[in-house]
């Protein structure tokens, strides 16, 4: 059952992205930025956890999850240690994707020759 939920939720997020892309002159960079902001706002209202419980990996794969992780990390930090905790905690959950992306991008760029 969770597979169907994952299909639906990931598909809907991708379809929303495509609709935005079709009807505006956004580039994919704009779109991803917008989706991260939307993810953070959904997480602000406490709804993203429900989406993850319902849709599993379907909700953690899209880029909206990055906004959710940033918000969740900073909010949990705020609850534990006030303003200091917020600054310390903002990257605790979201850093995984960024770290791996940087390492992989560097390795791939060093190891390949771009075609021209």
């Amino acid at each position: 059952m969770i597979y169907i939920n994952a299909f639906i939720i990931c598909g809907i997020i991708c379809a929303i992205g495509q609709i935005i892309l079709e009807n505006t002159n956004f580039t994919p960079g704009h779109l991803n930025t917008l989706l991260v902001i939307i993810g953070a706002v959904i997480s602000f209202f406490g709804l993203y956890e429900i989406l993850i419980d319902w849709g599993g990996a379907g909700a953690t794969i899209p880029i909206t999850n990055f906004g959710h992780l940033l918000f969740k990390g900073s909010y949990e930090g705020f609850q534990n240690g006030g303003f200091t905790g917020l600054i310390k905690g903002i990257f605790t959950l979201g850093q995984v994707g960024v770290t791996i992306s940087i390492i992989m991008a560097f390795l791939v760029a060093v190891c390949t020759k771009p075609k021209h």
Partner: protein
Amino acid sequence: MKLEEYKKIVDKNSSKEDKFKNVFISFIIGGIMGVLCQAFCTFLNKEIGIKLEDASMYTTIMLIVVSSIFTGLGFFDKVVSFAKCGLIVPTTGFAHAMTSAAMDHKSEGIIKGIGSNMFKLAGSIIIYGIIIAFFLALIKGVI
């Protein structure tokens, strides 16, 4: 020729892609990505015994690694031109933006090329994510 007439001719001759078809394709591809990742996540959780949160973390890592390597091999762009948002919206798009930016500027050297251009496309995602998350967390925490 006046500008308006020219615009009319351009509109008539520019190729119109079927919007509904694109949305449908990205829905299907995105859904398949979700199912595959859910299967991988369940496999890690049930068969190997990793915690659920860590399993979804490793799923994201797997996606990033695979899409970076595909970008390096050079056929990710062709797949994206077919799959549209089905591959842009998942984390694959983020990894692809970083890897392709790093590859494009490789000829300028390791520091000034790869180092300073890696976040050229993907930097806005991180920057605005942090700004929004910071202020929203501050607002929610204070309230």
